[in-house]
């Protein structure tokens, strides 16, 4: 199966199967959902854990007994595996910019679900990060150019 190298249309690249594109976007949506659920559950749960984390790994394992932290760990681990699968389906120059929207989603979730104070400066920062990640991610790389369909 061909890798998805960007948002190019299949007409220009008839050898791409539309199924591959659909699969890539489904995996992407699954990844973003897992990240959103995992981050929120983790942040909510960790604030309930009374002991302050330090260099001792046992503290982290004990913190995972909190059900929200546990949900966060499972969701974020699945997100990690999903991201690895995404790398096998699409190029880094596609994955980096499209997953960067996660930074803005996290700020939104912090404000809406965790009732965090989000200043205008923080919103601006998150948007600047998103723009920067898109710029970095869409930089052409020699290693991926070699794999593009001709």
């Amino acid at each position: 199966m061909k890798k998805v190298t960007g948002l190019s249309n299949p007409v220009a690249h008839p050898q791409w199967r539309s199924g591959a594109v659909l699969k890539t976007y489904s995996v992407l949506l699954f990844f973003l959902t897992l990240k959103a659920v995992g981050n929120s559950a983790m942040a909510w749960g960790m604030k309930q854990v009374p002991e302050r984390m330090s260099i001792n790994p046992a503290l982290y394992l004990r913190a995972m007994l909190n059900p929200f932290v546990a949900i966060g760990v499972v969701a974020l681990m699945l997100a990690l595996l999903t991201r690895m699968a995404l790398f096998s389906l699409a190029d880094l120059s596609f994955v980096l910019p499209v997953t960067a929207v996660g930074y803005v989603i996290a700020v939104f979730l912090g404000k809406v679900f965790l009732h965090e104070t989000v200043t205008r400066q923080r919103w601006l920062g998150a948007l600047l990060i998103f723009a920067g990640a898109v710029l970095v991610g869409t930089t052409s790389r020699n290693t991926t150019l070699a794999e593009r369909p001709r």
Partner: protein
Amino acid sequence: MRWVLVAAMVIATVLGDLLQSHEMKRAGEQSVSMHGFARLLHTIARRRLLILGVSCNVVSFFAFMALVQTEPLSFAVPASSSSFVLETLLAKFVLHERLGARRIAGALAVLGGVVLVGG
């Protein structure tokens, strides 16, 4: 303290990404079905560098747990994007890659964004 945790998280993430990207390119296409995940776990178990990469992810994960315990999520997640800045510095000074204006502008935008988010 918040920036120490951000640094630990970012350094571990970049190392983990480097190792994973290198190994997964050699492992071939993976899927997200139950069978796919099982095969992915099997692949991880067989490749030592991939295990090291995943260990880096564990360190990064613990640093993230410690960070969200004391800091808001709306700071912790955007701050983790500093990895783009570190990756760009590594590309320039370790891999001696020639960076385009776009890449430099992107990394500077991320850096500016992280400063704004943390301010």
